[in-house]
């Protein structure tokens, strides 16, 4: 009999934790920009803005728009960062290796895939 109370209680506890976890999911969706490993700033994805990021080759122009972030322009030869397009989910990143610029997204919804190799 006590078994059923225990199991019922644990099930209820677990079901209750669903909304609690969901609450954390939307907190602080932020783009973290680093140059050569050093933090330049954390920018909320909710606010549209242009961010010029200075690296060793020059200025990489970053734009936050529509809850995502992308690289508009960069002084690197191959412009892979620009070609990567827009990133929106936590764990995704844009990297400009020549200029030393790394843009990561933290907080927010769990992406549907754990990693993307390009």
């Amino acid at each position: 009999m006590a078994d059923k109370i225990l199991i019922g209680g644990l099930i209820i506890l677990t079901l209750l934790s669903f909304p609690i976890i969901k609450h954390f999911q939307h907190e602080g969706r932020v783009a973290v920009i680093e140059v050569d490993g050093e933090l330049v700033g954390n920018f909320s994805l909710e606010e549209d803005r242009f961010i010029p990021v200075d690296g060793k080759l020059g200025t990489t122009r970053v734009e936050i728009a529509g809850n995502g972030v992308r690289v508009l322009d960069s002084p690197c030869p191959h412009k892979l960062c620009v070609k990567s397009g827009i990133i929106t989910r936590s764990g995704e990143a844009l990297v400009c290796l020549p200029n030393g610029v790394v843009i990561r997204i933290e907080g927010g919804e769990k992406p549907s895939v754990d990693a993307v190799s390009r």
Partner: protein
Amino acid sequence: MRRIKRNAFISSLVAMAVVIHSVEMFIPSPSPWLRFGFANIIALTAIALFGLRVALMVTILRVFLGTILMGTFLTPAFVLGMGGGIGSTLVMGIAHRQFKAAFSLVGISVMGAYTHNIVQLALVYFLFIRHFEVFYVLPVLLLFGILTGILNGIAATYLTAHLARFSFVQLDSIS
């Protein structure tokens, strides 16, 4: 002679646990490191038949041998298996000693399964993936854990009932 029979019997328990642990690896899972934990049937049976100390031995040996056999020795799966296994065996052992009157093996098994999942996820967070996102799967994992716990408990109940007739078994053991 009795001692030898007892130890041989415990060794077969370990062997059974290793088999379950290894076969379990082939069941699909959201992550390569997180497994169901059916081997806990044996841990629970060992608790019921011999007590916590023997059960811990069985669990530790099971993780060592199982991971060596499957080639996952000292990988994250090993750490998680050890953590989850020892954690749940401890909880089940103590719960069995204290609350045997109130809970059947099913209830105790569910307690073990619950802690198994929580410990594993905590280990994943602190040792491997330090993103809070790791905990998003916790509710789903726990629900499945409760289900597995119930199944394990039923299995262990049958197993214990059939094995209890061996003379060297120490039911209601204190150690």
